[in-house]
């Protein structure tokens, strides 16, 4: 039901991203489509929203411009940048989020800096050295149709462009704003062991005291059975204090929902609007970008906010 990205367009565009290899998963993301929950549509958007916004700011785009969210590196993309007269030009781009080895035609690139790409150069990303999701913003941003005001791919609902595939050609829109005139955006390094603040509830009373103690006292592991919908965590089994079914209720990004197997799922950007399993705690809003960077195998500790 979703509109595919403009695929296998043979015509060479003046300014475009040409996907040579999407790596394990690359999607288009922006700040999402909030405001549609009453029709059963979740907000979606980048898993690490501040990183997406920063990538756009570094190339002078409005923060809501779509960028590429690539999961565990591996992306190879050719950037075409020619003027209206066909003469080779340049386009500005920036990488943020999970730091990974990056090269432009083999020449190493830094993170969190704007860099100029000449027509036809190939950008290649290795696997991240920390975190999981890297953002590539390009000046102007990919020009693809929006769904309900957003170009985000929602993997649960199937809204927005399909995940990017080799051969996809994404035309670039004209630049929307001035370049910011900064060379580097200093950012805190992503940790290897993650600590997330978790507000107890709203259904912590469905769990026994040992479960609540284990949530905050034990070390959890982010498993590989994770995606933009949620991160499945492995650790001690969280036991219920009461049986029965909870009627479906509204969910938020950051909710730790516990199905009957006692292993929590940390909901991310593409979580459902409503869910039927009790939520034992919810990640503090300020720590949601970090939650969106949890790589498989990462150790996670939960702390109560002060």
């Amino acid at each position: 039901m979703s509109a595919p990205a403009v695929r296998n367009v043979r015509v060479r565009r003046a300014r475009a991203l040409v996907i040579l290899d999407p790596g394990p998963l690359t999607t288009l993301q922006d700040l999402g489509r909030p405001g549609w929950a009453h029709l059963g549509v979740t907000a979606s958007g980048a898993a690490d929203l501040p990183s997406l916004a920063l990538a756009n700011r570094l190339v002078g785009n409005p923060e809501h411009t779509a960028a590429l969210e690539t999961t565990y590196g591996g992306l190879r993309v050719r950037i075409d940048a020619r003027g209206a007269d066909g003469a080779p030009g340049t386009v500005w781009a920036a990488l943020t989020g999970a730091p990974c080895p990056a090269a432009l035609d083999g020449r190493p690139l830094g993170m969190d800096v704007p860099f100029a790409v000449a027509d036809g150069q190939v950008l290649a990303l290795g696997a991240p050295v920390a975190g999981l999701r890297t953002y590539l913003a390009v000046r102007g941003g990919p020009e693809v149709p929006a769904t309900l005001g957003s170009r985000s791919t929602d993997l649960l609902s199937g809204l927005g462009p399909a995940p990017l595939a080799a051969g996809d050609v994404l035309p670039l829109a004209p630049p929307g704003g001035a370049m910011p005139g900064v060379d580097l955006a200093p950012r805190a390094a992503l940790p290897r062991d993650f600590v997330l603040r978790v507000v107890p509830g709203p259904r912590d009373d469905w769990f026994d005291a040992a479960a609540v103690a284990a949530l905050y006292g034990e070390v959890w592991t982010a498993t590989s059975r994770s995606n933009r919908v949620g991160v499945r965590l492995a650790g001690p089994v969280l036991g219920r204090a009461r049986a029965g079914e909870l009627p479906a209720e509204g969910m938020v990004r950051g909710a730790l929902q516990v199905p009957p197997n006692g292993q929590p799922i940390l909901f991310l950007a593409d979580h459902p609007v409503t869910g039927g399993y009790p939520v034992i705690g919810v990640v503090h809003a300020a720590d949601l970008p970090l939650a969106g960077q949890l790589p498989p195998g990462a150790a996670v500790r939960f702390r109560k906010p002060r």
Partner: protein
Amino acid sequence: MTPPPALSVRAVGSAALIVDLAGTGEVLALRAALEREIPNGVRELIAAARTLLITYDPAATGHEALAAEVTRRAAAVTGGATGDTPGAAGAALAPLTVPVRYDGPDLAQAAALTGLTTAQVIARHTAPDYTVAFAGFAPGFGYLTGTDPALRLPRRAEPRTEVPAGAVAVADGFTGIYPRSSPGGWQLLGTTSLPLWDERRDPPALLVPGRTVRLREVPR
């Protein structure tokens, strides 16, 4: 007037709260009251069967202030609330008639569970005016209130891995229609060919909260 039912407001992280209410009628009444005059900082109101989730901008308001405001507003509306309360956007839309072929794989079991004939199940299911109470589960999936109490069936013990698009189903006192093929645990009574979700339409969903819905049987 009976005293207002006990109400609890719980924090959902640092930017949302959830209100537990006695039933769907109270949820819709509170949602309608808040929509009429949105409290400062509120972003979204997400209704469900017995709860209203309220997301907010923590820079504009806080849990204490919003919880107090919501409690005050809830006491004013839930004391006399019975049944469904209009007020949601869909109430302004024309009633929607949905043609249904009663060919669902759970129709016979629904008859067996209720002690009715299949013809009686169909007659009871097509009789009421339904109201879209809220949406969830998938884009365009509306929960319809107004289902005949005799058809109040539980979810299937084992959800189906694939329910076809357009399946008309009941569970937990609600009627629902699957906008697209998906897993699902509701009891399938029939099918409609009406496209319930179309991104190019405004609004993209036909089942908008507050809208009146009628089911009309069409030949198989």
